[in-house]
C-alpha cells in the first residue's frame, strides 16, 4: 500500500504539538494537547485505510471505488468518546479550581511519600517486616462466657 505523505506529515505535526501540550501542568492545556493527539490519531486511521474514495454506501458508488469502512466505524465512536473525555477533564479542571483556585496539577503527595520511603528504605508498610504475631490466646471462646463463668 502506498502511504499518503501529506497526511503522514500532518499526523507528525499534530502528535508533536499534542505531546508538547499534554506535558503541561495546566489541566486545560493538557486536555487541549490530548485533543490534538486525538485528531492526529484519527487521521492516522485515514492513512492506514488507504487511498481516498467514495462514501462507503452500497448503491451510491461501485464497491471498488469506496473508501475502507472499517477504520471509519472505529473512528466514529472515538470522536464521540472524545466529547465525553473533554467534558470529564473540564469538570476535573473546574473541581481543581474550586478547591485551590488554579487548574495546575500538583505532585501527588502519596507518591511523594512512597518515593521518600523508597529512598530511606523504610519498609514499615510491609506486613512481613515485623515478626509474625502469635495468636493472642488459645481459644475461640476466651472472654465470650467469662462474665457468666466468674
Amino acid at each position, binding site marked *: 500500500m502506498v502511504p499518503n505523505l501529506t*497526511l503522514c506529515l500532518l499526523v507528525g505535526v499534530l502528535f508533536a504539538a499534542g505531546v508538547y501540550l499534554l*506535558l503541561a501542568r495546566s489541566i486545560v492545556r493538557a486536555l487541549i494537547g490530548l485533543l490534538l493527539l486525538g485528531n492526529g490519531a484519527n487521521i492516522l486511521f*485515514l492513512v492506514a485505510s488507504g487511498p481516498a474514495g467514495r462514501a*462507503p*454506501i452500497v448503491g451510491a458508488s461501485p464497491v471498488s471505488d469506496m473508501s475502507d469502512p472499517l477504520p471509519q466505524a472505529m473512528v466514529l465512536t472515538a*470522536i464521540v468518546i472524545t466529547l465525553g473525555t473533554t467534558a470529564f477533564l473540564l*469538570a476535573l479542571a473546574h473541581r481543581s479550581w474550586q478547591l485551590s483556585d488554579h487548574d495546575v496539577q500538583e505532585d501527588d503527595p502519596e507518591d511523594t511519600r512512597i518515593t521518600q520511603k523508597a529512598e530511606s528504605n523504610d519498609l514499615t508498610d510491609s506486613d512481613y517486616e515485623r515478626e509474625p504475631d502469635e495468636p493472642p490466646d*488459645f481459644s475461640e471462646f476466651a472472654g465470650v462466657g467469662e462474665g457468666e463463668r466468674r
Partner: protein
Amino acid sequence: MLALLGVHLLAAVVAPLLVRLWGRKAFLLLAAPPAAAAAWALSQTGAVLGGHLPSTSVPWVPSIGMGLSFRLDTLAWLLTLVVGGVGALVLLYCADYFADDEPGLAQFASCLTGFAGAMLGLVTSDDLLVLYLFWELTTILSYLLIGHRPASRSSRSAATQALVVTTAGGLAMLTGIVLLGEETGTYRLSALLAHPPTGTLATTAVALLLVGAVSKSALVPFHFWLPGAMAAPTPVSAYLHAAAMVKAGIYLVARLAPAFADVPVWRPLLLVLGAGTMLLGGWRALRQHDLKLLLAYGTVSQLGYLTVLVGTGTRAAALAGVTVLVGHALFKSCLFLVVGAIDHRCGTRDLRELSGLRRRMPALAVTSLVAAASMAGIPPMLGFVGKEAAYTSLLPGAGGPAGWSGWTLAALVAGSVLTFAYAARFLWGAFGDRPAREPSRVEPTGPLLVGVPVLLSVLTVAGGPAAGRGEQFVRHYVQQWPAPEQSVHLGLWHGLTPALLLSALTVALGAGLFLLRSQVERGQALLPQRPSAEGGYRLLMRSLDRVSLEVTGALQRGSLPLSLGLVLVTTVAVPGVVLLRGVAWPSQVRWADNLTQPAVAVLIAAAAFFTTRARRRLRAVFLVGVTGYGTALLFLLHGAPDLALTQVLVETLSLVVFVLVVRRLSGKFNDNPSRMTRRARALLGIAVGAVVTALALTATSVRSAGPMTARFAEGAVEFGGGNNIVNVTLVDIRAWDTMGEISVVLVAATGVASLIFLREDNLTLSRRLLEKARSLRRTHASVGGNAGSPWLAEGSAMSPERRSVIFEVVTRLVFHTMVLWSLYLLFSGHNHPGGGFAAGLVVGLGLAVRYLAGERDELRAAAPVMPGLLLGAGLFLSAGVGLVSLAFGGDVLQSWIFDVHLPLIGSVHLVTSVFFDIGVYLVVIGLVLDILRSLGSGIDGLIEQEQDGPGPAGRAVRRPVHGRSRGAEGAP
C-alpha cells in the same frame, strides 16, 4: 452428579438467608446436601463395584476441549463418601458450636456449604481443567473460612499465607495440566491415565502437578500454612484442614500414581518429602501447648505418611494408603471436634490449664481415647489396620520399590513412634489431671458437640474389624498394580508377623518418648528455630514488598508530566531504535489524494503550532477547534461523510462546553513552565511526532492485504439490512464494540455529574426543579402557551438585560427543526450518512442552543428528565435488544430484517438493529444533557451562590491568595 453439585450451589446461595431466618439452626438443613452426596455414593456402590461407573459429560468450552465431565470410579466413590459424610457431620456440629449472633455467620455458612460442593466436584471430576477450577475454588473458600474473623491480624495473615502458598502450587499445577493436555490432546482424566504420555515433557508436567499436590497437602517445604490455618473456627479445621481439602493433594497423587509412579521424578519427590514431613510434623507436635496446634502438626505428619503410601506405587502400599486415608479422616476430624467442644465448654485449649476433664466429660474422654488410639495405631482400631498394611507393604516380598523400601520403612516406623507419643500427649493434655490446678469449669452445651464426635469414634472402632471385609470395595483401585509375591490383606490378626513386631516396637518406643515428654520439650526449645520454611516465605514476601516499593518509588514520582514523559520516551525509544537500525522505507509515496488535502493539512498544522504558543485559554480552544473542523474536512475529502458529520457536531458542542467551563477559570493559563521545561517538552514532542510519521510511512508501505470493503459491503446488505456500511458496522457487525463504547460514554457522563454536583442533596434539588418544570409545562400546555415570552418556554424568567430577542427567535425557529432532522438522521442512518451518534449530537446541539438562549430554566423546560434516565434507558435498549434476539434462537445482537407492506405508507424495510441505534441515540443525548446540566446549569448555580455570599456549597476551601491565578480570576 450435576444435580448434586447444583444442590450444593443452591444451598450455598440461600445459606445466608437461612442463617438470617433461623440463626445457627440453619446448619441442620445445610447438612443435607453433603449428606445427599454421601447417600448417593452409597447407592451407587453396586454400580461402582460392577464396573458400570456412573458418569456424565456436558460440553462446556469445546474449543479447548473442556467439559463438565464427572465419573464415579472407586477412588472418587471412596472420597465422595468421606467428603460428604464428614461434611454433613461437621455442618451438624456447627449448629451447636456457634452463637446465633456470631459475626459473619451467614457468609461462613455459605462458604462451608459451598466448600462441600467444591470438594465433591474435585473428587468426581473427570476433566483436568474442571478439576483445577474446583481445586482453586476450595483454595478461595479456605481463604475466606480461615479469615472468618477479619478483625484479627493473625487471622488475616494466616488466611493470606494459606492462599498465597496453595495458589502458587495451583498455578504450577495448571501449567502441568496444560502441558499434559496439549501433549496428549485430551483433558479427560480417564483417557489420559489409560494411555499416559512419556518423555521429558510428561516428566515436567507430572512434576508440576506434584508441586500443586505437595503445596495443597502441606508437605515440606509448604507445611507451615497448615498450622497457621488453625486461625479458622474449629469445625473448619476439622473439615477442611483434616478430612477434606488437605486430602486433595493426596487424592491427586493417588489418582495419578497408577499411570505415573514410574516417572523418574515421582518417587524421589514424594517419598523424600512425605517421609520428611511425617517426621517433622510429629516432632513439632510434641512441643505444642495448644491442643489444636498439636493436632495440626499431627495432621502435617499424617499427610506426609499418606503421601508416602499413595506415592509408593505398589498394590500393597495403595491398599494401605486408602485405608489410612479413611482412618485419618475419621479420627482426626473427631479429635478436632473434641477440641472444639473442650474450647467451647472451658474457654481454653491450653493443655497447661485444662484439668480434671476426664471426670467432667466422660463421653468425650472415651471418644478421644478411641480416636487417639486409632491415630497411634493400637488394635482394634482402623488406624492399626492401616499401619499394619503400611509396614507390610514395605517389607520384603510385598513388591515395594527397589532401593526405596528399606529406608522408607524406617522413616514410617520412626514417624509412627512420634505419632504414638503425640497421641498420648494429646490425651494426657486434654484429659489428664494437673494437681497444681483446680479442675476446669465446664459450661453445658448442646448435644451435637458431643454426639458428632462420638459417632465418628464409633465408626473408627467399627472400621478396624470391618476393614477385612471392606477391602473388596477398593479392589478396582488397587488391582491396577500387579499382585506381589505375598499378597497383602487388611485385617486385625495376620499371625506373628514382622509387621506386628514393628508395631510392638513402635508402641514401646512411643511410650518411652511420651514418658520423656518434658525432656523432649525442653530439648526442642534449645534447638535453633532457623532456618524455617515460614521464615523463608516471609523473607520472600518481604523482598517482594521491597522490590515493589523500590520500583514504585523510582518510576512513580507523583508528577503526571514526568510519568507521561516516561511512557512517551519509551514510545520513542523502542520503535526509534528499530527505525534507526534500518527498516524497509516505502519505495514510493503518494503526495496527496487531491489538491484540497494539502491546503487543509497546512491549515491544521498551522493551527496546531499556534495552539502550543497560545497563552489565553480561549485562543487555544479556538485554535484546537480549527484543527477539529479541519479534520472533519479531511474526513469528507477521504470519502467518510459519517465521520465528517459527527466530527463537525462534536467540535461545535466541544466549543460550547469549553466556553461554559473556561468562563470560570482565569483568562490566561496559570502554569508558567521554565524555559528549560518547555524546551524539553518541545524536544520530546518533536521526537514523538517524527517517530509516529516514520511509523505511519513504514507500516503502511508493508501492508499487503487489501481492505475488507467488499466483504463488509456484502455483509451489510445481506445480514445487516442496510446500505450505509459504516452504520451497519456500528450497530451490527461490530455492535459489541459499540456497546462497550457507549458504556464508556455513560461512565464519563456520570463522572462529570459527580464532579459538579458532588453531593446527593444537590441532585435531589435538581430532581425537584425538574418536577416543577414538568408541572409548569403541563400548565403552559393547558393555558395555551407562555404569555410572558412568546418565543421561549421560560424566557421570561431571565433578567431583561441578559435576553436577546434575535437569539430567542432563532432558537424558537430552529429547535424543532433540529429535533426533526435528528429523527431523520436516526432512521435514515442505516442507508445514508447519519445514525444514532450523529442524530444524538444534533439533539444535543439543539438543547445547547435552548440553554444558551434561556439558561437553566429553559434547559429544564426543553428536556425535563434526568440525564441518567436517558443514559440508562439507552444502554438498556441496546443491550436488551441484543438479548431479545437470543430468545428467538439467534445470536446476541443479531439483526432481524422485516419487510412489511403498510397501507398508505407503502413497503417498510424494518431492521431490528434500529433499536440498537435508538439506544445509542439516547445515550448520546443523555451525555450532552448531562454535560449541559453539570457544566452549564450546575456552574451557573455555583456562581449564583457565590454572588449571594458564601454559601455552604461552592468552594470548600478558599486558600490564601494564590499568586499566579488571583489577578486574573473571573475574567471572562
